[in-house]
């Protein structure tokens, strides 16, 4: 079945019906909104952009609980002073480096989710990242990532090679699996690497012809997809891209990546899921408070997200950007003015569909008896409930049970991160 499956799905639902099978899109679950989905390359197709803050971001200094005396007691050297915090709701506030995002909070397109994380207690970066990407906390042998499983199941849009794109040299675990997804290190270098355009076109045609004769197997269909992608990108002409007037992305990898994601969205090549890494959050030593190491990373994040939002402008009405991180950090600062591996952390969701202007999730408090294992912020929201809500309510996923095996995110537990 594996050889023909992709071709099979590409040929559309009719083939499925004629074989007497239920097309997947008829089997919508209770989560789905019964709204007609736009064609894959239409400009109002919902898009999800995920940024993985690898290294475990200190959620408490990103979304600061400045109304909690315990926060200041436990962090004499690294707490963000109440006067510096960009207040959100009287209890929580943004780290001052994230000030560029305040206007999104005010126009209700930015939400923060606190005390979110994994039901698994591991404090290993490796294990926790793995669980967050496979979507199966505690189970190590899951072969594919949850984003790929979403693509495997909800295949209505499988006919564009740009449906799921990871920006980086290799496909991350979250997108690994049998549904086609692309890893793009640099949009401008995607395709055959030949310096002169004429020579490149010629070589591209030659390979295209070679594979055209390869029959009907996966080799032939995948190469066709690849060359289609090259053509689509050529028409979109990434070398000529200029962000919207007045928008400047911050220097560095994250800015460049978000610029390329914006570019791909505007090119209308059918992007539905974009994923990128953003590292440097493992602040064991001298993490700083209003200024310093963490502040510098958050500044880049804030500026990059704000630039992305302005660059896309009206297009943000159907885009959700979500940050995620494998776990949070200790409530108490350590002996090196840093923080060690903890449990729950905070995430940010922004974009038109986001039910913003609110800190979501049940805040467990920082008192000793409220903590996880006596030291860390307790998890009150399983990350699968947030991911599941976004898949169901934003991307109209039809079967969350196969995306998160062994755990069916229930609408009762959804936080209301996406507007109804």
């Amino acid at each position: 079945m594996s050889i023909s499956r992709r071709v099979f799905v590409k040929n559309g639902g009719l083939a499925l019906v004629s074989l007497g099978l239920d097309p997947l899109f008829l089997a919508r679950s209770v989560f789905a909104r019964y709204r007609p989905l736009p064609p894959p390359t239409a400009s109002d197709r919902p898009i999800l952009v995920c940024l993985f803050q690898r290294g475990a971001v200190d959620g408490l200094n990103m979304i600061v609980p400045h109304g909690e005396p315990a926060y200041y007691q436990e962090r004499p050297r690294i707490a963000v002073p109440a006067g510096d915090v960009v207040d959100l709701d009287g209890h929580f506030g943004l780290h001052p480096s994230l000030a560029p995002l305040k206007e999104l909070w005010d126009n209700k397109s930015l939400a923060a989710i606190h005390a979110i994380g994994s039901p698994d207690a591991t404090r290993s970066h490796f294990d926790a990242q793995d669980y967050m990407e496979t979507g199966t906390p505690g189970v190590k042998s899951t072969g594919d990532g949850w984003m790929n499983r979403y693509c495997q199941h909800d295949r209505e849009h499988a006919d564009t090679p740009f449906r799921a794109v990871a920006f980086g040299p290799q496909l991350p675990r979250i997108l690994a699996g049998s549904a086609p997804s692309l890893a793009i290190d640099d949009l401008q270098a995607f395709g055959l690497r030949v310096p002169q355009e004429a020579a490149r076109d010629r070589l591209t045609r030659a390979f295209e012809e070679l594979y055209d004769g390869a029959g009907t197997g996966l080799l032939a269909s995948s190469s066709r997809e690849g060359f289609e992608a090259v053509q689509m990108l050529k028409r979109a002409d990434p070398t000529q891209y200029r962000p919207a007037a007045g928008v400047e992305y911050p220097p560095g990898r994250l800015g460049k990546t978000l610029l390329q994601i914006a570019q791909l969205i505007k090119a209308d090549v059918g992007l539905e899921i974009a994923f990128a890494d953003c590292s440097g959050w493992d602040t064991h030593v001298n993490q700083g408070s209003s200024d310093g190491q963490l502040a510098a990373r958050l500044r880049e994040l804030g500026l990059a997200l704000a630039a992305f939002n302005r660059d896309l402008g009206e297009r943000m009405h159907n885009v959700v950007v979500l940050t995620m991180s494998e776990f949070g950090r200790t409530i108490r600062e350590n002996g090196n003015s840093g923080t060690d591996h903890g449990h729950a952390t905070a995430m940010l969701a922004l974009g038109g569909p986001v039910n913003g202007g609110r800190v979501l999730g049940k805040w467990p408090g920082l008192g000793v008896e409220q903590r996880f294992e006596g030291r860390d912020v307790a998890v009150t929201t399983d990350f699968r409930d947030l991911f599941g809500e976004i898949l169901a309510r934003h991307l109209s996923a039809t079967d969350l049970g196969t995306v998160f095996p062994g755990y069916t995110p229930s609408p009762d537990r959804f936080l209301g991160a996406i507007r109804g």
Partner: protein
Amino acid sequence: MPLSLIATLCLLTTQAPGASLTPRDSAFHALNRLAYGARPGEADSIARLGVMRWIEQQLDADHVPDPRIAEHERQFKILDYDRADLAGRYRDATRERQRLQREAAATGDSTRMRDARPMQEFRELGGQLQQLAIVRAAVSERQLREVMVDFWTNHFNVFVGKGADRFLLPSYIEETIRPRAFGRFEDLLIATAESPAMLFYLDNAQSVAPGSRPPAQRPPAFLLRRRFGMNEMPEERRQREQRRPTGINENYARELLELHTLGVDGGYTQQDIIEVARIFTGWSIEPPERGSGFVFRDWAHDHGTKHVFGLTFRDDGKDEGIKLLKFLANEHATMHHVSAKLCARFVADEPPDGCVDAAVTAWQQTHGDIRAVLRAIFTSPDFWSAQAVRSKVKTPFEFVVSAVRATGVEPDDTPRLAQLVARLGEPLYQQPAPTGYAETEEHWVNSGALLARMNAAMMLAKDCSSIPAIDDHAQLVEMINQQLLAGTMSAHTRTVILEQLTDIHDPEQARVMAVGLALGGPDFQRQ
């Protein structure tokens, strides 16, 4: 099995319906599966020798002369260090990096981070391990052994990026897997279970019986002063206590059953996993400064009686685990699971029952002698069937190494080829999941990966030394067909390449174009 009998078998199998392989095609097929592809002329020389005789030689790897490998291996310093050396180097590198981090944070100058030389050196040393695998696969005459080392390393996968596995992996491959690649499955299974790399990777090292505590060790006096003097807060002491493992960890037990032995449909329950985990409590590793070797900690072992798979394990220390591993190694589900995986590697992505059954029978008869199991697969009609020949797509590792062998590119000790394999999606030893890398084409064939293969092909074509630059295009393409594809180039490929060459008059350019298209085209992706 006497050679004459094998020759007869071979004769029978190649005459099986649907398989009309010439001796050269049989040799090319065997080279594609038991080896990393054919070097120029190699299919012919094996056809002359007799393919079954060559297969027998490969199964008896110790007696295959391998004159060039030693000289290549000498380039790799990683082979000069033992586990303790590497642990020490890693510890020093980590300390140096932490020192620089503290300095950088204090001065606010992050550019100094790039000066962490020892860590860079350690990483380069780690990178050598990948490159070494490529060199061995490309150069060694004991090809089947290299294939099997790769197979078992993947079957018993350990992720090199997880903490201590950065320095435990080299000895895992050299000392645990390599010497046992052709031995008995049972010995290999026990060796991996006792290997520090696996114990760390799947967390068994910290699996302890609930409520157990290490015997009280009074720290030396100077430490006591430091710990309980002004330097340690009660909270820090409490946190240190909390980091101590406090219960069983099921990870190893689960993967042992699901991946290493019985298989996911092997008919075990969550309760079985818990019982197995209890049996392995106390299987741990020494601290890095003492070499990180295997240690059985009696205090951490669950001394209660365990019941699993109809067996009873009474308090018997480490021997409980050994008894269980020996039992699992020869369970029918294990034989079937591992045989099917071998057949997926050697025969077809979805292997026919015939070859799997033949492998299981050989396993039963020989108590898991890997050589006998392999021989059963290679003499099964399924292996030689028309459906099997050229039915599999090469993995990125197989693609790069077979291209290197075909083009005569001399692999060196630089990370170039290892980086290429990584770019195609299979960075060696860097699969985080214990499943290892997949064998089936759907995991390797996608649009981005194919474009990357085409780029790699053009790059390797530039270094090709097995094809001379000649004026006559028809002759050039025929030479590529013979040397790179053992005469299996499709008519379509030939036509397209020749068309592309029509307006290229520089013989060197024509050579690179033709070789690149041949390597990056569909014929060479198959094996």
